[in-house]
């Protein structure tokens, strides 16, 4: 099945297309002017991202970030379209006991260092990443400083 390619999909089109293409896997949680917020299933994150890149023409990944919610981790993707300025915010939840998610660095090369940063600061492992090594912190670090379990002076 080949999907139709949209160069300038509107916010309504994006939320409709994502719902129909990935029923049960993507849940659109809200829309604003030029913004789409969605929750994605982590098992098929690569599939969803490939669809967004190839068929919805989201050529640019603005950021990939981690977030520690203590009982679970989150990886949040911000994807942008260069033709109409629309951004998609995809949130994938990861259980705290299995910190794995598929890497999207093969779709957007610009996501490479974002994933490395998220790995070194949160300990989330991106499967299939070409070089998952520490980037900002020394290689000898054995802890993940941005986790909530890592306390700063002044935090109780």
């Amino acid at each position: 099945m080949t999907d139709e390619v949209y160069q300038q999909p509107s916010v309504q089109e994006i939320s409709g297309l994502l719902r129909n293409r990935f029923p049960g896997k993507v849940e659109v949680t809200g829309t604003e002017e030029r913004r789409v917020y969605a929750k994605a299933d982590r098992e098929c994150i690569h599939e969803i991202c490939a669809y967004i890149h190839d068929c919805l023409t989201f050529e640019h990944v603005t950021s990939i970030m981690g977030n520690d919610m203590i009982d679970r981790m989150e990886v949040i993707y911000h994807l942008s379209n260069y033709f109409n300025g629309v951004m998609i915010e995809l949130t994938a939840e990861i259980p705290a006991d299995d910190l794995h998610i598929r890497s999207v660095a093969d779709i957007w090369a610009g996501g490479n260092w974002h994933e490395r940063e998220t790995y070194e600061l949160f300990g989330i492992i991106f499967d299939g990443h070409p070089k998952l090594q520490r980037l900002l912190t020394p290689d000898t670090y054995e802890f993940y400083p941005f986790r909530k379990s890592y306390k700063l002076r002044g935090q109780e």
Partner: protein
Amino acid sequence: MMSRDVIDIKAEASAINTDKMWVIMGPQHPFSHGLWTLKAQLDGEIVTDAEPIIGYLHRGWEKECENRTYPKIIPMADRLCYAASMTYTHLYCMTVEKALGIDIPDKAKYMRIMADEICRIQSHLMWLAAVGTDLGNLTVFLWAMREREFFMDINVRLCGARMTTNFPRIGGVRNDIDEEFMMYTSRCVERFEKAVWDIISLIDDSSIFVSRMKGTGYLTRETCVNLGITGPAMRGNGVDFDIRRDDPYDNYDKVDFEVPVLNDGDSYSRYMVRIEELFQSCKIIKQTLQKIKAIGKNAPYRLKVPSKVPAGRAFARLEDPRGESMMYLVSDGTDKPYRLKVRSPIFVNVSASKPLVQGSRIADVPAIMAMIDMCLGETDR
């Protein structure tokens, strides 16, 4: 493809078989403009592989913010990048305002974008000075720095500081501006629009400058976009996108300006885009001054905001002098952020240094990397 009238895009392979050699450029190296390292593998004079190494300046900025109340982060945002302090403070305040769900007064919006454009001009002039020294012309450095002083003086009149300005506030800006400031600024801008031609002629009439920039650091539009390069470096590659125009924030949709885009994709077109942006910034500053004057003296410029931000998430993005910067805020309802993420444009741009320098001569590496306009404070955070 671009015109190849000056020199070849990718240099020819060396005829003699020699061992490949790794050259470590940095962290202290005249070309690096900050603490970072470029490991380059050389085959003769040609770069065959490269790896950037960053992290010397990592100070856990995002984690530090989780320990501070919201207003205390404003001066910290200044220190993300000393050359573009205004845009980062603006971005931070915009993100928190979005989380609070408030709309700031019109006057504050115009004052912010005026301050942003002043910041853009002085940041680009600093880049121009760096390009001058990188390519061996000290006059460009001195003249660009001299022009920059005028904009530093505007900053002093605006908020009392030259570089780390600490001017935007959550809900508006720190102080109002007076007639004298407007007069001084418009005079400065008018003077600058003429004076910048001196620097341009110094570069464009110099065959050494042009031949070192034309045809080097070539990327196609698709590679450039896929690598996540943003800002003037991207617009020199034919990507017609500017957040100020295509995803407007504050009052950028109410001012008239053009987005310079060039299709050549080499260092020279990146240089030309930045020079053209200087003129467009002048145009925006003049318009905002008129609009601020029309709004009137006693209009409000700052709102009172609650110290606690309701639980939720918000993000904002903004066109930094160097590219696309974004902040993402997770709030848990207290007076301190739960998580604050910064997307820095240079962090991604420098990750693309391998495709940028691969295949070019080692002597061209400073010229190519100069067009990225490095700033390590925001890269390492």
